[in-house]
């Protein structure tokens, strides 16, 4: 007999739906408005602080639902956002700056669900409030920095190898070095030296016979850009962690862009300051041989560079950078033996070696710390983006008393606040290349709530309309289609909750609504076909069989093309459009599953495999 289910089919479909249901369940528990409090400088919050904080809350009459201490972070749950905001203002007043508070939404998933890894869908910023930044990395500056480093290194190596040269000039925009040598013999030995060093360099001789051109290959430039981007992302992550945001996102987009999303953050000014500060530190030896007056008059020696100290005094430093800030692993502020503010700096292994080598023969000489900062100026480049200007000043210079190693101190700072700020900037790392903000969106928490409400309303009413329509139009079969539609939404929500990267945004919700409207299409196709087969005089069982069979080819064809569009949308779109594409694509897949497979099983169960005179269709 036609239209009978096999047991394993039924079992598979039911268990799949159950699984989706379980993973969709956490979304039914609304998240609590919460406040997470963490201690900075790697410190942890003890049970003692927890007791203290809960007492402070009690005194201020702010009701708190729960206090949880987890991984050195304290999570306070509140019944409403009002209490949450009150508590934040309270703690911002009472806690010192060693603690960071962050607003967040803490999922209220029951323990048994949390244990199997079921979590609610992640909400996009437009649904939960927060700040979104799109940043661009200035690759030109990264390239320039690399060329300067290379230039310095080559000089040292040529000196060591006794290759006599006249000049080394860098052309950063073309990623080219021009090395003018004394003789053709020097040229030959440099060539052999360089070709051993790095095979990817493109070496060529200029027409004059004594100048070597060194060009970075496309591959090297690409690697350089990749590294600059990756390093900036790591550093931004560290900085975001310093602000203390729950579930921040720092993600690359395309070749030179970075997305930073800080849910719950309302104070965009502070966030921008911390993200945008592209401070770095350079250590150089002070040039004492050259004449400062002559340098001021414009005759700066080739190996020196003129700087200014904080109080505006000119100072001549060596051009060679002994060490840069990206070798710093830790920095902390404190006081020296005279009670003056100081910053203690720890270096990584390579940094320690560099500094140790650099200061080996320099005892008694002076070393200067140069603070370099990129800031957006009011000037605009051709494409309208802000021009970044490099600001550098010597924060201090001190006599090197002995050969320096992995750790050393910087003194000569004006205040302890400055020491703290410098330490935190250094600790968060130096951006290898300056960044600028291309796009910024901040959404208030109330708008987020409003959007969720509207989205949920649209989904439920839209669904109700479709359910009613199907019931009236197709009667018994309409009921089956409705069961499938409900299963479809459960499946979709379950899948969206399971996929780690998927976030639900307002366009994503619109995608779900649209899916609800379109998901019945497959059923309409099948049911219309069954009606046709019936009116063509086929028996009930044959009509069901043929209806499903013939409609399937059409359903597959039409959905593959729609899926194609969704995939293209996902590949090319960004942010909210991507979210929309994900829900659309998943919706197509789940709707085929529910509208074809699930309804078939139900139809078979009700009408299949037995003598039926007429169908309720």
């Amino acid at each position, binding site marked *: 007999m036609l239209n009978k289910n096999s047991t394993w089919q039924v079992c598979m479909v039911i268990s799949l739906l159950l699984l989706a249901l379980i993973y969709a369940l956490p979304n039914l528990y609304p998240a609590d408005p919460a406040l997470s409090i963490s201690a900075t400088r790697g410190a942890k919050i003890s049970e003692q602080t927890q007791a203290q904080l809960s007492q402070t809350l009690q005194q201020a009459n702010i009701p708190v639902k729960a206090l949880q201490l987890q991984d050195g972070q304290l999570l306070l749950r509140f019944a409403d956002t009002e209490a949450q905001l009150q508590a934040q203002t309270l703690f911002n007043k009472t806690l010192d700056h060693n603690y960071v508070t962050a607003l967040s939404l803490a999922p209220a998933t029951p323990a048994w669900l949390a244990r199997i890894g079921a979590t609610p869908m992640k909400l996009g910023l437009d649904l939960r409030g927060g700040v979104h930044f799109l940043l661009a990395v200035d690759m030109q500056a990264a390239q320039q920095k690399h060329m300067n480093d290379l230039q310095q290194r080559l000089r040292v190596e040529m000196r060591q190898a006794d290759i006599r040269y006249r000049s080394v000039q860098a052309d950063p925009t073309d990623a080219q070095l021009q090395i003018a040598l004394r003789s053709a013999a020097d040229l030959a030995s440099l060539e052999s030296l360089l070709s051993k060093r790095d095979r990817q360099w493109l070496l060529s001789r200029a027409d004059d016979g004594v100048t070597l051109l060194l060009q970075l290959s496309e591959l090297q430039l690409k690697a350089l850009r990749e590294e600059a981007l990756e390093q900036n992302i790591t550093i931004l992550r560290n900085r975001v962690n310093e602000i203390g945001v729950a579930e921040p996102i720092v993600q690359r987009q395309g070749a030179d862009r970075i997305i930073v999303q800080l849910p719950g953050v309302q104070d965009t000014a502070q966030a921008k300051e911390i993200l945008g500060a592209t401070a770095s530190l350079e250590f150089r030896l002070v040039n004492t041989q050259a004449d400062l007056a002559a340098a001021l008059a414009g005759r700066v020696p080739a190996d020196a560079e003129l700087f200014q100290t904080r109080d505006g005094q000119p100072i001549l430093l060596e051009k060679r950078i002994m060490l840069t800030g990206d070798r710093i692993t830790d920095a902390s502020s404190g006081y020296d033996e005279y009670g003056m503010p100081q910053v203690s700096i720890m270096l990584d292994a390579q940094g320690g070696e560099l500094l140790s080598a650099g200061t080996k023969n320099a005892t008694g000489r002076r070393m200067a710390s140069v603070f370099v900062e990129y800031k957006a100026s009011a000037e605009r480049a051709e494409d309208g983006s802000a021009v970044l200007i490099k600001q550098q000043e010597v924060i201090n210079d001190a006599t090197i008393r002995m050969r320096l190693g992995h750790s050393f101190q910087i003194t000569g700072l004006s205040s302890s606040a400055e020491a703290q700020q410098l330490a935190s900037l250094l600790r968060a790392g130096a951006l290898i290349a300056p960044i600028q903000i291309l796009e910024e969106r901040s959404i208030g928490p109330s708008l987020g709530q409003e959007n969720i409400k509207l989205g949920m309303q649209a989904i439920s009413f839209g669904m109700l309309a479709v359910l009613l329509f199907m019931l009236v139009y197709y009667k018994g079969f309409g009921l089956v289609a409705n069961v499938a539609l409900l299963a479809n939404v459960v499946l979709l929500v379950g899948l969206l909750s399971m996929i780690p990267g998927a976030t639900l945004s307002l366009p994503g919700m619109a995608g779900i609504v649209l899916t609800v409207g379109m998901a019945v299409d497959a059923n309409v196709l099948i049911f219309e076909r069954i009606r046709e087969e019936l009116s063509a005089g086929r028996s009930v069982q044959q009509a069901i069989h043929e209806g499903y069979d013939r409609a399937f080819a059409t359903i597959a064809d039409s959905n593959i093309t729609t899926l194609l569009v969704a995939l293209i949308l996902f590949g090319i779109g960004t942010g909210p459009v991507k979210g*929309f594409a994900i829900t659309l694509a998943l919706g197509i897949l789940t709707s085929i599953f529910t509208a074809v497979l699930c309804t078939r099983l139900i139809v078979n169960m009700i009408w299949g495999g037995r003598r039926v005179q007429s169908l309720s269709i």
Partner: protein
Amino acid sequence: MQVFNFTQPANFMRYKWLAVSVSVLLVLSSLMLLATRGLNWGLDFTGGTVIEVAFQQAANLVQVREVLAGAGYADAVVQLFGSSQDVLIRIPLQQGLAQTQLGSTVLSALTQQIDPLISMQRIEFVGPSVGAGLKQDGGLALLVALLGILLYVTLRFEWRLSLGAVLALGHDVILTLGLFSLLQLEFDLTVLAAVLALIGYSINDTIVVFDRIRESFRKLRDSSAEETINHAITTTLNRTVITSLTTLLVLLVLFYMGGALIHGFATALLFGILVGTYSSVYVASAIALVLGLTREDLLVPVIEKEGATNDLPL
């Protein structure tokens, strides 16, 4: 219950020239509109700053404009957004203006001079280089989607149908853009997503009709191409209308209840699906017919085994 109950295939293709000329006329006037009035590009594309604030009571827009002019933003556009208490402020990109500080400056001017209870709903700043890239990416997405469909339908069906489908899709997209140009509705990222979703929906509709055309060609051996297409459209008409109806139902809900942010999205799809339904029935098949589609074009070239299933090769 049934929407249409035809006993005979309706003669849709009798009006094919009328349909084609009406469509050509509409497409041409949409293109004219786009060329002369252009689209009202949203913040996502133009760059600039948008600030949405909520007032405790109905907002006085004149006062808001005065405060903004006083703060040095004379070219700010101020309008209500969704309700009388929500105000949207747009400030275009400007030379030498510290764009990234703008949001907080405007907000503090409003709270200080009008009402301290005014709350920030959202601040969006988009730099100039982002918008240009988006337009390019959006256009590219449209083109790639259309090309992908052209290729897929050619492989699965036949080039005349494929061309008909893609022209019908282009027709839907151009008319929808034309509507946005005519009414000067804001064209933002969600509308772009809607237009792309429209392609997905409309092709779905068209393929269902095509599938039936192919099947009918194989079944009705003595009928002319025109008769066959009429038959196919008639038999799928119920499905076409019902699916459009359920989709329109949810879109109406979205339009009325989805909030101001999703309005453009719902508008584009509502209009697009109406147009798309018409074009799936008329434009796509009519073009294929005009291009000279015959029965032989859709017969399977290899000899099928007798008694094999009716399933089409996937």
